[in-house]
């Protein structure tokens, strides 16, 4: 596990703890944008990692949104 993975896990855990799906989406989209510039500069390893982070952030955001909506629907 590299340093960047540890940083990602910390941010990911913080965002999940905050339970703010929009922050997760924003973080996921930012990862995609950063990955574009890194791929363009041929910095592949970090760019590939950013894509994976984006994937997990967006997935978590989606699940969180669905859970929140289903709770809303029960009220």
């Amino acid at each position, binding site marked *: 596990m590299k340093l960047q993975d540890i940083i990602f896990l910390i941010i990911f855990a913080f965002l999940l703890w905050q339970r703010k*799906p*929009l922050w997760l*989406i924003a973080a*996921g*989209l930012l990862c*995609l*944008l950063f*990955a*574009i*510039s890194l*791929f*363009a500069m*041929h910095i*592949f390893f970090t*760019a*590939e990692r950013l*894509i*994976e982070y*984006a*994937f997990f952030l*967006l*997935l978590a*955001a*989606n699940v969180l*949104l*669905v*859970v929140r*909506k*289903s709770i*809303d*629907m*029960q009220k």
Partner: protein
Amino acid sequence: MGGFAAPFAWNYYNFALVFFLGRIAHLSWEVVQRIGYLLPFLILGVFCPMYCYKKIFPHHSFSLLAAGLYLLNSYSLMVIGGGQIAGIGFAYAFLPLILLSFIKLIDTITKNEVQPVQMFKVSLQTSLLFSLEIFFDLRFAYMLIIAAAIYLLLTLSYIFPIKNLSRLLAALLFVFIIPVVISAFLHAFWLLPTLVSHQSPTAALSSVYTTQNAVQYFSFAKLEDTISLLHPNWPENVFGLTHFMQPEFLLLPFLAFSSLFFISKKPQRNTQNVTDTIDGYTSWWQEKIIFYFCLLGLIGAFLAKGANDPFGGLYLWMFSHVPGFIMFRDPTKWYTLVAVSYSILIPFSIRSMYDWLSARRKFSIFNFQFSIRPKLFNLQNIFLLLVLGYLLFLIRPALLGKLTGTFQTHHLPKEYARLASYLETQSTFSRTLWVPAIQRYGFYSSQHPEVSAYDFFHVTAISEVFGHLDNKATLPLLQESAVKYIIVPYDPEGEIFLTDRKYDQKKYESTVIQLQKMPWLKQIKGFGKIAVFEMNGAKDHFWSTDPAMHIAYQFKNPSEYFLSVKNAKAGDRIIFSEAFDSHWIAEINSSQNIIESRNYHKSFTSFLLPASGKYTLHVTYEPQKLVTMGLILSGWSLFMIVVIGSWIIIVDRKKDI
């Protein structure tokens, strides 16, 4: 060398259409290609995603963009360029419509006030569409079931805890059991022989198709490719040739997942129908649909990368343990889920951004107020132009005519036409062995089947083929297999003789020279760059180890032959040069006496004659009878569905009146 093909007969349409248009209507291949494949594909490919988008967002006017994204992305263009329109192409084009039908079905079932008859009506419609998808490609039907299951789970999570257990059971019955059972009846023509004969569909396939190593080999796409809807072989479409990531494609997932920002903070909770939507707000249902397509896109991207990181082992595990997953040796098929997801999400995001920009006619910079008045050159239109320019930029190789395959005109080389004419004049049965592999223009017929040396010797390299050809045991094996001609193909498309994925003339020449050195082969001149070698002693389709026996046979179809045998002795063996299959039987003199097939030399089908004398034998492949029975069952099932469907429609109309 022959085999059990019933499990793959669902794609019979591919051959039937060519047969009817070409052989019966006598249309040229150019016309058959356009009328039979290209035109219906384009119509379906535009209509289905447009209809799907229009049904989800009836107040949005960007449905043409949905069609453009679905039809003109790198994956679909590679499918078209690879000549896969028949089957995969149709299944791909048709998929959004069937997915919408499943969504409608699940929504109908989860509503409280709907009657079972209404549920059955929608389930019947979905079943018919689902059956049609199986007809095009079984794998796409499998993907649809998974996509429907995800939507059902999402819908159930919205109405959780499920107060009524019967509603859950109804969902399982109407969404999965009824469509699968109806499809099974409609596809009885290939399912019946497959199930009754107890032959595994994978038994006919080599390890190249069924092992985890094969999946790892075929996992060309990485997560950055799949999430960007970028086919790993784009744009050359050369098998295995991948490039560095093209970062401009990453804007596609950015646009797609931006849609999550544009769902209303307070959607209308009590609206389940799309028609209840008010402009500018997403309804409860539309919001669920956006969540669903985001989830579908992410799952599709994860599966399409196959055995690559992250969690590549999960795909390998599913390939070995999840029923039906064995069909996805090539994980790129899962790109379809990403394509259908983005064809909904991206137009929605763009429309939402367009609306957002339209609402901002005034803006300020350093306390200076600006107002945008022009109707044409305003922010929203400039944004739209930029997006369109970007989407066209992504598919620039297609626009500049750089795509290969079916996007380019190909002419049949004269050599191949000459070889076809030559083989057609040969009246006796014989096989052609293509070294190292069959070329796409190579001629074959029931009288002269073609065999690839790679498949025949179960190898993957030319050197290994020659390792077998140099073996003394190979000559009798080829003779017994009725191989009369060994052919080195002319490779104008550069697909066979490759070094580092480029055509290698030396490889071709070396193959020809090595065959010329073989003393038991005689080269026949007159076929240009196709090197044709004839070998002596090739057996007929039916032959015997007893030289005194005389066999005359008549071919009716590939599963039925009539034999007249003279001078037979008790215990003589008739060898049928087809791969051994215990389902071949020989009926003696139109009686009920049957000779069962036996394995000869661990390769061929053979029949042991019980007594001396003359015989009239009727050799048949038993599962073929089940195909006929299955066809009748399929026909009756279709008839019954039409009758029941019509009855429901009539009853519904009477109620309305």
